[in-house]
């Protein structure tokens, strides 16, 4: 259905190719998963399927890409009835006003007869379970709903191939499962070919029929999941647990792993997880007292009471739109609470001037690139030293602690996602705020970068910082946090030690906990340490 023959692609002005010598054939009805480290060229590979690369990017493409027998020499619009593409942020691609119009948009362009259009819109509304949304304005959708509508908007053109770039990475665990259930249904029932890139392997690897690994050498190696996962550079926790316990074939899903895990559970029964102390150690840094927040006429948070102490890492969890980011924005002084009191380090953050604010609290937004303006890493560090009247070199030293050895003359744009995040954390920490906040820090991070981040955060907490992170990534919470707060519908519904909170929740439990339940193990690291002792 999709074939890449000797494809080498170079972006305009780039010295090295983004894809090298790619030979790949994807059959009809496959669920093909593309994995690889950040910046390896996954998005480029995806966008080459319908010709957005090179028609929208420029650059030179050698070799041929064909879909359903048609070469991508023709522009993407002529392939619209064969390939549907959903980008990383689906809301950015919406053209019309309402859900129904958006679903019909592709069919209008293809000239589908009105009667057929009405029928197909109804079919897709039912297929994706979005019939209640049909008259909604697109601007009011949550990100999970937007993702499903975006899939629907390309499905109505009845394509043979569906291409999705990180369809679940911005979604909470529940919404992600909805989207994946839809994709498997399209493959199983309708014989669609699905071509998808995703970092969150723990969510998708069990559904894939084959996996293509984009390596550091820009080549793509494809194979069956059980074979690829034996030694792939990226692996979800369930695979890592399987490698540790020596299970063959390597389990890809919690179900497979649980069947193989009975002996392991017995061996671990006598042991308890030896986790480093993650409880609060110091004095209280931040406090929210009966805080409520609203945007316009919408109540986002109400009656929120909590406090954060030095030395603890608090994970803030909950559905998309539950109010996590709003809570962080209030702590960071970007939003004033409607009622109640927010105190950080003894001051009300929204009343502080920005130069004073940064000494009390720092927030790394979900897109760390928003914090970066300068042309080189050295210039960014120098600007932070100058802004906060620090001795020259202070910020650079901090950056070296977090991510050693970055080339000072590199443009931040050319860094990997993980390196940009490290730089942003260093810039925010330069004025030494006792409270560090991170909003969705793992978006676009591969497993290696995530492990690095988690180590950095633990080190910061050990040195007396209080850290709070809002995240959907249960594996990061399991690796990092000592305390977890779950927000639902603007209220705190649970607040306690992370181990208890996540292990007792079917939605937020990490894979290792699901495999080894009812014992409360969180990470592969814990299991390995217990077995070694």
């Amino acid at each position, binding site marked *: 259905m999709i074939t890449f023959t000797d494809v080498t692609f170079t972006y305009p002005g780039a010295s090295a190719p983004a894809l090298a010598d790619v030979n790949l054939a994807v059959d009809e009805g496959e669920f093909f998963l593309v994995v690889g480290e950040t910046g390896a060229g996954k998005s480029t590979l995806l966008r080459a399927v*319908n010709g*957005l690369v090179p*028609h*929208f990017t420029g650059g030179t493409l050698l070799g041929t890409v064909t879909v359903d027998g048609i070469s991508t020499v023709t*522009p*993407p*619009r*002529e392939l*619209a009835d064969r*390939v*549907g*593409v959903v*980008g990383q*942020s689906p809301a*950015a*691609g*919406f*053209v*019309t*006003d309402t859900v*129904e*119009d958006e679903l*019909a*948009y*592709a*069919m*209008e*362009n*293809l*000239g589908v*007869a*009105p009667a057929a*259009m*009405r029928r197909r*819109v109804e079919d897709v509304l039912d297929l994706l379970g979005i019939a*209640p949304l049909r*008259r*909604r*304005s697109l*601007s009011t959708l949550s990100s999970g709903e937007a993702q499903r509508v975006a899939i629907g*908007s*390309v499905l109505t*053109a009845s394509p043979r191939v569906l291409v999705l770039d990180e369809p679940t990475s911005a979604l909470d665990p529940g919404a992600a499962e909805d989207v994946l259930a839809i994709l498997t249904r399209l493959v199983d029932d309708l014989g669609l070919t699905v071509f998808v890139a995703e970092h969150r392997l723990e969510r998708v690897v069990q559904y894939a029929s084959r996996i293509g690994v984009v390596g550091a050498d820009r080549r793509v190696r494809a194979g069956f999941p059980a074979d690829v996962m034996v030694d792939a550079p990226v692996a979800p926790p369930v695979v890592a647990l399987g490698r540790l316990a020596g299970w063959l074939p390597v389990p890809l899903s919690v179900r497979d792993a649980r069947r193989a895990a009975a002996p392991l559970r017995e061996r671990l029964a006598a042991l308890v997880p030896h986790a480093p102390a993650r409880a609060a150690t110091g004095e209280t840094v931040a406090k929210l007292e009966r805080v409520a927040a609203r945007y316009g006429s919408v109540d986002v948070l109400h009656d929120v009471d909590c406090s954060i102490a030095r030395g603890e890492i608090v994970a803030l969890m909950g559905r998309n739109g539950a109010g996590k980011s709003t809570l962080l924005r209030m702590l960071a*002084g*970007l939003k004033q609470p409607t009622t109640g009191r927010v105190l950080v380090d003894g001051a009300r953050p929204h009343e502080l001037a*920005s*130069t004073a*604010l*940064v000494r009390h609290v*720092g927030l790394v*937004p979900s*897109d760390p690139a*928003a*914090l970066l*303006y300068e042309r080189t890493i050295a210039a960014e560090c120098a600007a*932070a030293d100058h*802004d*906060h009247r620090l001795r020259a070199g202070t910020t650079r030293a901090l950056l070296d602690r977090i991510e050693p050895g970055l080339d000072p003359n590199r443009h931040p744009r050319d860094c990997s996602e993980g390196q940009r995040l490290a730089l942003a954390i260093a*810039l*925010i920490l330069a004025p030494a705020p006792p409270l560090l906040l991170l909003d969705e820090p793992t978006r676009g991070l591969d497993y290696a970068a995530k492990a690095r981040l988690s180590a950095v955060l633990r080190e910061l907490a050990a040195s007396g910082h209080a850290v709070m992170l809002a995240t959907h990534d249960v594996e990061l919470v399991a690796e990092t946090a000592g305390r977890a707060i779950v927000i639902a519908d603007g209220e705190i519904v649970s607040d306690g030690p992370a181990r208890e909170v996540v292990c007792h929740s079917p939605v937020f439990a990490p894979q290792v906990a699901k495999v080894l339940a009812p014992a409360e193990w969180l990470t592969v690291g814990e299991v390995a340490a217990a077995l070694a002792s």
Partner: protein
Amino acid sequence: MRPRALHPVAWWLWALALAAAALRTSNPLLLGLMIGVAWIVVAARRPDAPWARSFGSFVRFGIVIIVVRMLLQILFGERLPGHVVFTIPQVDLPSWAAGVSLGGEVTKEALVASFNQGLQLATLVICVGAANSLASPYRLLRAIPSVLYELGVVVTVALSFAPQTVAAAAGVRDARRLRGRPHRGLRGMRGLAVPVLEGALDRSLELAASMDSRGYGRHGDMPANRRRVAQVATLFGALAIMVGVFAVLDSGAPFALGIPMLAAGSVLLFISLNAARTAASRSRYRPDVWAAPEWITVAAGAGAVAALVIAGHHDPEALRPAFSPLHTPSLPLLPALGILVAAVPAFATPPLPAELP
């Protein structure tokens, strides 16, 4: 009436007619009445969508226009004789700058004249703002003939550019605060432009890619050279109609120019649309209907223009009140009634469909 959205072209024709009426008078009472009519209709029939929230900004922009127009008059304007309100120091300009004055006596007459001119411009802007918040830009875009592919992309991206720039600017301001840099006032503006434009451009490109991936502008079976002919015919047709309308409306233009231009434009448009239709490369889901409410809306707008055109022939004084001697302007009956007719769409159009929560 069954709830539905009115045809966007009807709203635009109505608003443009109101704007054309505003061009024919400088009577502040009539202009104020027009603003009131636009306000009432917008309040009654504005949907709850992001693009529909812009009316307030257009009104604020109108007020800025009036203030700027009066300031320009006070500083550089023509010195109208009359009742002196105050005097600002006069600068003697060299002889080559004859005709421009800087400073001097500011008279009541000059202030009133500049206020009226500013109000007229503001009314035009508010009429456009009303159309902007009443008619969905996307639905209007569907009315663009499919042969004008490039134009369609440009307009869609342009329409999404402004709200995206606003969102990007808010993000960058937040980021500056988080970095401990000034984020408000003039100092905060420094270094804002590049990241904001970059962010908005990125998103615009993504939108264009999404449109293209979903088949926007497919050639279908239409051969390329025929497509070019249709494009040229459409553009020139629209241009000719514009010149024709202008010539008919503007009393100073030769009448002979208007009608032939309108006719030529219509023929060209007919040819190109016909060419596009035979290619049949696009279809419509729930096409916007054009029924009685649309006719009523357009007729209401046309009524206002007609009343002002007729009044202009019978009683030009009332439409363009003189400034010297200064006197309170009167409210002429016929134009006032005509403008009030333009408020009919506020209740004669179908109500908007309620959005489910």
